[in-house]
């Protein structure tokens, strides 16, 4: 990975480009330029405050809510809220607020389209360029999902809403450019198709949005990350975020392979070596754990497709991502068992997935004070860890966790996944808040603090 001096929130990865044609290489460079510029917009979004500034620094949450009653654009995903000369709150569309930079980005995308020999991909680039200038983001996402799987992929624009801690609405700018990894993409598709062959009993079918038959997954050798995704370095993501679009057009998950590798080497392997007793550690090979970590990431993104409920975001508001991520993570464990029963993965692969699932629980804990975007994950992970300890699946000793009881782990995570899904499907805001208050104590992490803090020092995110 390369950080680029003078350009914040922009990372490039050293990936294999030998399989690309000359014109594809030229396209790639144009896309890289476009992504680099998107990083500048994200920097502007974050300026002035520690976290993303979607609202004026002096505004209160209540004031925003009140203003939104009179003008719904105040809580549009794609507007910045500012004060006018009289101090009144006004909403400015992103495509006007960042017009200058967006025009240059759009130019780069159009230039890439002109070079590309793939007509469908070129068309997507043109639609993405138009979306940035006009705000027609849905159209761009539909076009991106609808093309036949192609080696190159770019996502660019205001996408993720996790940094809007108040309302979980406003989107942060980001971009990524990737080159499809054919072999691992095929493996991920096999996992997806095997998992989806089970017609799940639907909890509250009227609430559920089912788009399994229209969901796609790809594993990319990521070429660059820009904007919010460069800040948080997700290992995988699923788009679109709008439930209505998903129901109609399906979804596309992307696994970012270099980030998975980096995350394994710099965080999860050291966490594994810290939290487990030596006796347990000796029974795992590094290569098995690395594969296990990749499979965990794949299963997490596949599980996302199974738990989408129509009104969950409006009911649970800022608590939604906590429940969504937790349900998905617990469900991924269940799905891993399903793959094993059908011999899609071996027992040692399943055990590696379970071990890496445990290391993921400690992810982000030490960044919580610095990053609002990671808070939902940390709280969800605390619920998971508390549940595993209280079920006896994990027993913490003076030298770390002893051998986990995988059988109890399956039962505990499966029960938790069911309970969390119920809250997503029909829970009220109060239900969600009460459960969270009772079960998300962070105390559980503290006994590991000294050792894990060292890891964070060695490998800052």
């Amino acid at each position, binding site marked *: 990975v390369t950080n680029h001096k003078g350009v914040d929130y922009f990372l490039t990865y050293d990936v294999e480009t030998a399989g690309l044609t000359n014109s594809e290489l030229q396209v790639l460079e144009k896309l890289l330029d476009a992504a680099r510029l998107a990083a500048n917009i994200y920097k502007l979004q974050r300026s002035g405050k520690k976290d993303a500034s979607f609202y004026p620094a002096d505004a209160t949450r209540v004031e925003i809510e009140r203003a939104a009653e009179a003008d719904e654009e105040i809580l549009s995903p794609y507007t910045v809220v500012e004060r006018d000369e009289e101090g009144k709150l006004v909403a400015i569309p992103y495509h006007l607020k960042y017009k200058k930079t967006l025009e240059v980005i759009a130019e780069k995308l159009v230039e890439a389209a002109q070079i590309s020999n793939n007509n469908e991909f070129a068309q997507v680039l043109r639609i993405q360029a138009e979306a940035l200038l006009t705000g027609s983001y849905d159209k761009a996402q539909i076009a991106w999902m609808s093309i036949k799987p192609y080696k190159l992929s770019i996502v660019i624009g205001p996408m993720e809403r996790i940094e809007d801690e108040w309302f979980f609405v406003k989107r942060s700018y980001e971009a990524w450019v990737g080159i499809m990894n054919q072999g691992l993409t095929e493996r991920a*598709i*096999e*996992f*997806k*198709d*095997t998992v989806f*062959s*089970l*017609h*799940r*009993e639907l909890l509250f079918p009227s609430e559920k949005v089912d788009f399994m038959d229209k969901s796609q997954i790809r594993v990319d050798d990521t070429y660059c990350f820009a904007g919010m995704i460069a800040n948080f370095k997700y290992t995988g993501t699923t788009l679109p975020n709008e439930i209505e679009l998903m129901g109609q057009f399906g979804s596309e998950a992307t696994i970012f392979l270099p980030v998975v590798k980096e995350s394994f080497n710099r965080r999860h392997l050291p966490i594994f070596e810290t939290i487990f007793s030596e006796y347990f550690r000796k029974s795992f090979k590094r290569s098995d754990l690395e594969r296990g970590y990749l499979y965990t990431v794949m299963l997490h993104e596949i599980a996302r497709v199974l738990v989408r409920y129509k009104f969950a975001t409006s009911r649970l508001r800022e608590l939604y991502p906590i429940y969504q991520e937790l349900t998905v993570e617990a469900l991924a464990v*269940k799905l891993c*068992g399903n*793959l*094993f*029963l*059908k*011999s*899609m993965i071996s*027992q040692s692969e*399943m*055990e590696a997935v379970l071990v890496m699932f445990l290391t993921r629980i400690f992810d982000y804990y030490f960044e919580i004070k610095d990053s609002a975007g990671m808070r939902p994950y940390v709280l969800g992970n605390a619920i998971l860890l508390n549940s595993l300890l209280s079920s006896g699946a994990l027993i913490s000793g003076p030298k770390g966790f002893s051998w986990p009881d*995988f*059988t109890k782990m*399956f039962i505990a995570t499966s029960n938790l996944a069911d309970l969390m899904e119920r809250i997503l499907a029909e829970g009220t805001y109060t239900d969600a808040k009460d459960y969270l208050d009772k079960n998300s104590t962070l105390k559980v992490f503290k006994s590991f603090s000294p050792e894990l803090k060292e890891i964070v020092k060695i490998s800052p995110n």
Partner: protein
Amino acid sequence: VFGVIFRTTTQEGKMATAQQASKQVYLTRQGLQDVKGELEFLKTDKRLQLAKRLQDAREMDNTEENAEYDAAMTDQELVENRISELEKLIRQAKVIDHSTSAPSQIITIGSTVTLETKDGVEEFTIVGRTEANPAKKKISNESPLGSSLLGAKKGDTVSVSTQILSYQCKVLEIK
């Protein structure tokens, strides 16, 4: 590692079936056709393609360091290995044909089964390991689930228990 059957009625019989199954190569009629088709393709079209590729590579460069020639040679070796593998498979194959007989009362290799589990309903066919492709609803008779189902009847509740995972399902239908 693999499934231990908890249903007591035919426990010994089922374990014997599973053990026997693991020594033989079971193929459905369609599976055998697919194998023969692949073999035919490799022995004719693919061999011809490779021969031409090798010839072109030779003509392109006579030096010892000819990457394309080396790559073609490697591919040729892979193809010949695959041909041997498929020929052996055909010799050892035991064909399971459910298309001409009445649906079996018990689950055997080749049965298409519908199961009900805690999470929902699913249908798949139990096949030999060479044909197995869970993503296409073909489960190996040697998988924990497949081996535990062999010998079960419609209406049975089957428990699959491995070292670390227990699972229960009910047989709704056998085709």
